[in-house]
C-alpha cells in the first residue's frame, strides 16, 4: 500500500516540478521566477522526504533540513536584492 502511495506521490511531485519549470521560464517578472524557485525547493524537500520513506532510511532528513535552510536564505536574498539593490548593506 505504501509503495503504491509513494508511486502516486512521486508522479505528482514530478508533474509539479515540470509546472514550476514552466513558471520559471514563462514568469513575466522577477518575483514570479523567485516564487517558482521557492516552490521548486519545497517540492525537492517533499521528494527527499518521500525518498526517505521509500528506501526506509532516516539518513535523508539532514539533507532535507539543509535544503530548506538554503532555499529560504536564497529566496530572502533574491527578494532583498530586488528591494534594495544590494544583499548585505
Amino acid at each position, binding site marked *: 500500500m*505504501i509503495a503504491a502511495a509513494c508511486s502516486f*506521490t512521486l508522479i*505528482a511531485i514530478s508533474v509539479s516540478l515540470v509546472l514550476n519549470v514552466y513558471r520559471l521560464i514563462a514568469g513575466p517578472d522577477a518575483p514570479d521566477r523567485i516564487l517558482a524557485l521557492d516552490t521548486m525547493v*519545497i517540492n525537492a524537500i517533499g521528494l527527499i*522526504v518521500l525518498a526517505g520513506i521509500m528506501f526506509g532510511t*532516516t539518513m535523508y532528513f539532514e539533507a*532535507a*533540513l539543509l535544503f530548506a535552510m538554503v532555499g529560504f536564505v536564497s529566496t530572502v536574498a533574491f*527578494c532583498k536584492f530586488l528591494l534594495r539593490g544590494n544583499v548585505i548593506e
Partner: protein
Amino acid sequence: MEVFAESASAFFIVIGGVFLFTGSWGLAKLPDTMRRLHGPTKATTLGVGSLLIASILYFVLLHEAAGIHEVLITLFLFLTAPVSANMIAKAHIFRNQALRETLPADAGGSGWATLGVPAGSHQPRLSGSLTDE
C-alpha cells in the same frame, strides 16, 4: 497495528502529493503574482507537512526509529514560509508602480515599508541602517 500504520502512512503520503501538486498547479495557472503566491505558500507547507506526518508514523510505528528531524523540518518550514512569501509580495509591490498607486495609505508613511522612505521617492540608497527597515 501494522495494517493501521501502513494505511495511515499511505493516506498522508497521498494527501501530501495532492497538496504539492495543487500548489504547483496554482503557481502555473493563476493570472498574476499576488494570486500565484497563494498556491505555493499554503498548499506546499500543508503538503510537506502531510509527508512529514506520514514519515513520522512510518518510522515510529514500523521501524521504531523516532527522529526529531521531521519536527525540525516542519518547524523550520512553518516559520520561514510566511517570511519568504512576505518578501516576494514586497518585491512585487516595489517593482510595480501601478499597483503601488492603488494601495491605501500605510500607517507609518514609509510606502508599505518597501524602502523605508516616504512613497514617491524611490531612490535606492547606497547605505542603510537596520532601524529604518
